[in-house]
């Protein structure tokens, strides 16, 4: 999409752009290079010799891991797309009981990390848990004499990840549905399409880009997940990476496996881009007014839209709450406030930084045709699909080199004895978050940027505004919504982040996610429930803001037509 916009741009301002935008292109390339560096450090392993790890894994467990991964991806794809799209369609096109509330409540599961959900559901549903215990008391059955769905299984993991990740599809599908113009729908109606026909043949194809972008985020996060699958002992490709690295002690083979994962993701994204082709839909924002539903349809819609919230938020939150309240050893004190503060600071700074960088990259891609800039952007967003611990090692390595070089330099030329400047600083940690979560901000900002039509640029430029001024005066106000969305999504993701925070944080600096994980790892789930619950509560604040903003913008555009 941006490719086309960029082509248009430079076709109009060809001579001008070359000297004026040179600096922008340069800055964007350097930024992309910084984000890509850790990924290169991981890929670098393919030129290094590895031990017999590969042949061992390939001849024993790898085929099963690959099969599991593909199955998991397929199930999560079906899960997030069916639930995300159907609820987005219902809340944008119909009016039914609770619709106003459901419209924003549907993003709540984003506050619940999939691994926390996994802890909660396991505690609840395992054979020793309350559900099965009650069942046995009521029926008199004994364990192993009846069948009960096993939560710690591949379908169970797919369910956890779908509950946690469908909001990505919901958010993007929803804004795509809102953007669809009334005239298109009326044309479809005239052509004899009913409700289903309009949905299948008009709305869905028009919303395809948004739905696929949301599903891509969900699937990349599924590939990178280790917390949920390892807790459920579902062996995926990521398990293979960890097994090579930790159990077999072969970091090189782990890096090579991670590279395979990257190639897979890169290919899938490239195929998707190709399929999408040059299609571009820029309808006028003139959405359909929602139609009221009545009777069983209304209640059915309400139930359907409540289900993902119940499974993805209410039930796990209730389980955590019960664990916290019934645990005699729960600790609530000053320590917790420190964790809250640290979590806020990290997530806040990272959110602002990610939006700034995403804006820079997306804007450069829009104004420049350079294949280098576009290629760099496409690689820069891959960090999202790598397991966090792999990324962390990829970051630590170049940072260590830079740090030691700077120390040597300072000593040599200035006689200054210094310690590490980057590694172990908050700057390095924010950098790690950028590498991991830039995709989330980039996708959102890029989508927002496509809303700015080329003619607006032309108008601004012909009035004598420089590209930078155009960005500030024209683009920024139009894109405020998507920038805020990007910032909030990154905020929530950073809050839940574990592996990079684990490896790279400064001394005496813990976050809620780390506290929860440390306790859970030590098999003290009940004590881990409190920090997890607080983390969920904090994530709610930006999410509610986000939802209300989206709901308000939807209402505004609806009111405009009356």
């Amino acid at each position, binding site marked *: 999409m941006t490719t086309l916009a960029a082509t248009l741009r430079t076709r109009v301002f060809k001579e001008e752009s070359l000297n004026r935008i040179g600096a922008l292109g340069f800055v964007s390339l350097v930024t992309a290079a910084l984000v890509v560096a850790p990924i290169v450090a991981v890929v670098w392993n393919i030129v290094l010799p590895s031990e017999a790890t590969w042949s061992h894994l390939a001849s024993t467990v790898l085929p099963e891991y690959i099969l599991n991964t593909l199955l998991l991806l397929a199930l999560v794809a079906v899960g997030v797309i069916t639930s995300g799209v159907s609820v987005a369609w219902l809340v944008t096109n119909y009016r039914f009981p609770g619709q106003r509330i459901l419209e924003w409540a549907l993003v709540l599961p984003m506050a619940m990390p999939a691994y926390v959900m996994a802890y909660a559901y396991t505690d609840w549903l395992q054979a020793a848990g309350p559900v099965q215990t009650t069942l046995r008391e009521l029926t008199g059955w004994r364990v192993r004499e009846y069948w009960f769905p096993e939560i710690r299984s591949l379908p169970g993991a797919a369910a956890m990840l779908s509950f946690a990740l469908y909001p990505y599809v919901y958010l993007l599908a929803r804004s795509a549905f809102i953007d669809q113009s009334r005239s298109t729908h009326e044309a479809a109606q005239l052509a004899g399409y009913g409700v289903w026909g309009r949905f299948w043949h008009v709305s869905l194809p028009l919303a395809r880009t948004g739905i696929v972008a949301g599903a891509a985020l969900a699937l990349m996060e599924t590939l990178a997940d280790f917390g949920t699958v390892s807790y459920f002992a579902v062996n995926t490709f990521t398990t293979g990476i960890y097994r090579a690295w930790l159990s077999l*002690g072969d970091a090189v083979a782990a890096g090579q496996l991670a590279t395979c994962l990257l190639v897979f993701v890169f290919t899938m994204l490239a195929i998707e881009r190709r399929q999408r082709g040059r299609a571009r839909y820029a309808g006028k924002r003139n959405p359909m007014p929602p139609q009221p539903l009545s009777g069983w349809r209304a209640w059915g819609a309400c139930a359907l839209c409540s289900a993902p919230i119940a499974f993805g938020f209410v039930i796990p939150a209730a389980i955590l709450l019960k664990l916290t309240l019934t645990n005699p050893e729960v*600790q609530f004190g000053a320590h917790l406030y420190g964790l809250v503060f640290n979590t806020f600071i990290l997530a806040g700074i990272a959110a602002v930084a990610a939006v700034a960088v995403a804006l820079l990259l997306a804007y450069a891609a829009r104004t420049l045709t350079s294949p280098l800039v576009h290629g760099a952007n496409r690689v820069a967003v891959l960090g999202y699909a790598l397991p966090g611990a792999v990324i962390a*090692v990829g970051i630590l390595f170049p940072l*260590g080199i830079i740090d030691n070089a700077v120390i040597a330099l300072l000593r040599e030329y200035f006689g200054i004895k210094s310690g590490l400047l980057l590694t172990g600083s908050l*700057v390095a940690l924010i950098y790690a978050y950028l590498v991991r979560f830039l995709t989330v901000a980039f996708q959102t900002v890029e989508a927002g940027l496509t809303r700015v039509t080329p003619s607006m640029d032309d108008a601004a430029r012909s009035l004598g505004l420089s590209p930078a001024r155009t960005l500030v005066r024209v683009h920024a106000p139009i894109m405020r919504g998507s920038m805020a969305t990007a910032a909030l999504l990154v905020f929530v993701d950073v809050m839940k982040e574990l592996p990079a925070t684990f490896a790279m944080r400064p001394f005496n600096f813990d976050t809620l996610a780390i506290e929860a994980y440390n306790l859970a790892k030590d*098999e003290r789930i009940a004590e881990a429930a409190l920090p997890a619950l607080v983390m969920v509560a904090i994530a709610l604040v930006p999410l509610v803001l986000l939802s209300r903003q989206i709901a308000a913008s939807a209402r505004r555009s609806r009111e405009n037509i009356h």
Partner: protein
Amino acid sequence: MKPFSRAKLLSYALTLALLSWSAVAQTQSKTLNLYTARHYSTDEAFYSGFTKLTGIKINRIEGGEDALFERIKAEGAASPADVFLTVDVARIWRAEQAGIFEALKSAVLTKQVPAHFRAANNTWFGFSSRARVIAYDRSKVSPGDIARYEDLAGPKWKKEICTRSSSHPYNLSLISSMIHHLGEDKAREWARGVAGNLARPPRGGDTDQLKAVDVGECSIALANHYYYLRLLRSAKTEDRALVERVKIVWPNQNDRGTHLNISGGGLLKTAPNRDGGIKFLEYLASDTAQTYFANGNNEWPTVKGVKLDNPALEQFGRFRTDSLPLAKLGETQAAAQKMADQVGWK
């Protein structure tokens, strides 16, 4: 225009705050920088005990042992870390192989820590030990039937055994010890037998296995002893009820003894505060710190003759432990994982 300049102002302020934060000096002789994989609530008490004793303040990063190890390697000569503490001897061994620990000539440490609990070249020391025990349902199994690890592979226990994933360090070190005691071929047969006897695919942690025995999903499980002791000392009545129904045996009492793993660590070669680091390691081997280990996570002190001050540990009394030098377990960890993969122990 307006919102943008506000955002700009905010970003300047944040950058400033960020820079001043990271510029805080990290290395002083009055502070000790600790990278540790231990995380127990009682650890606080024993860190402050050290500060009271020596006046040295402890900075720490508690985290995943593997991530911390990678961080030490990446930080290289400039690493601020003085001491690296971790759990599982194979990880400690791997750190030693990477050459990050300094060989110490500390009379205190070599006297206090028995030889099989430390490296032959004194680069690392074990400070607490954990036993891999067999838990069983007392209504279905009599303790005599399952007195040795070898018994787990017997045909009697088809679909009766629960355990966590083979890739977990506690299982890998057990398989490693079988390789050393039985030889590779017999150890593989043993692992194949255990994998064939599993009641369900490995999943969950050690506590989950104990609970699975309790509700009847299986009648035998492998677990580290302190998870059982934690339930024994729990304030929850259902936890203590479990301990009534599920009992444990200390395996191999009539031959080589029960398999142990350790938590431990060493001084980094690049330690900025070398003296402080040695003091800290010696403190860990002192009676006070050893008592904390025994009390906090229900682990056994590695130092002999330390007063336990923990009724749950004392209740089990003395038992015979495997005296195989623990460093050996590190050497065969990769082989153990390969073996598990080959026999289908997931």
